[in-house]
């Protein structure tokens, strides 16, 4: 089965690497991993590229993760692409807000590859 194209959005390059590694450790085959340091950069990346999965932090400079999800529908390439939030913000209010903005999953840092698998694999619907 072909791997997926993913976009990882986090202002920490170290955390982007950890998320990518966790996806691979979770058994998700990745054909291409694109990166962005904030929501605005991510929107630019998506205008030029198609992905099947987006993993996104919430607290980022320039444009945070919640605003990014709200603007996602304005990018033709990104319509219907599932977004999973990965963040230190763990309150119910943040979870509800993220889900109501359109996120399909929510993972709290620190996390394990098993938690990534639990939240990401079901929403890929067999693509991985």
């Amino acid at each position, binding site marked *: 089965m072909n791997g997926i194209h993913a976009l990882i959005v986090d*202002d*920490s*390059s*170290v*955390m982007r*690497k*950890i998320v990518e*590694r966790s996806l691979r450790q979770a058994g998700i085959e990745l054909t291409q991993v694109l990166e962005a340091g904030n929501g605005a950069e991510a929107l630019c990346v998506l205008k030029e590229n198609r992905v099947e999965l987006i993993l996104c932090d919430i*607290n980022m*400079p320039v444009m945070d993760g919640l605003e990014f999800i709200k603007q996602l529908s304005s990018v033709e390439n990104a319509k219907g692409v599932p977004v999973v939030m990965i*963040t*230190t*913000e*763990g*309150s*119910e*209010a943040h979870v509800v807000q993220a889900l109501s903005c359109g996120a399909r999953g929510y993972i*709290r*840092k*620190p*996390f*394990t590859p098993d938690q990534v698998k639990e939240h990401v694999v079901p929403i890929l619907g067999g693509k991985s």
Partner: protein
Amino acid sequence: MRSSVNEALAANGQHEAWTPLLELAAREVFELMLGCQLVPSTTPEEASLDVTSMVGLAGKLCGVLSLRCDGKSAALMASKMLGVEAEKVGPEISDALGEVCNMIAGNFKNKISGLSEGCMLSVPTVITGTDYSLHSQADSPGLEVRLLFEGMPIAISLQIRR
């Protein structure tokens, strides 16, 4: 293990009960994200902890959470997070240490009832060197946990303003 921010505030700022939560928050971050166990530091360490990462807290709880270690520990943390040899990490060290501090702060506040909703975290700041003085608006005795990371001392502190 959970505590309540209101209980601590009602106790006139007696936050000492949060020390085990601070330690647990740090242990979980190192175990899950770096794949290693922190162990208690049984003797006072005189080593120079010359790399400091700080995250500010604002809202129901105001203060600064800091993580201090030496340069070798900081490089090893980055190496474990990136999955590369310690000798091969460079500018990522500050990024890694900031993220560790950020995750400890987030994990800590999520363990205190009422705090995860009403307390915001700043972006991390990392300082290298010891020739600086730090003045914070904290007005109550701070919490500090000293642990060993791969045999090397680290200190995690929380300065609180009531």
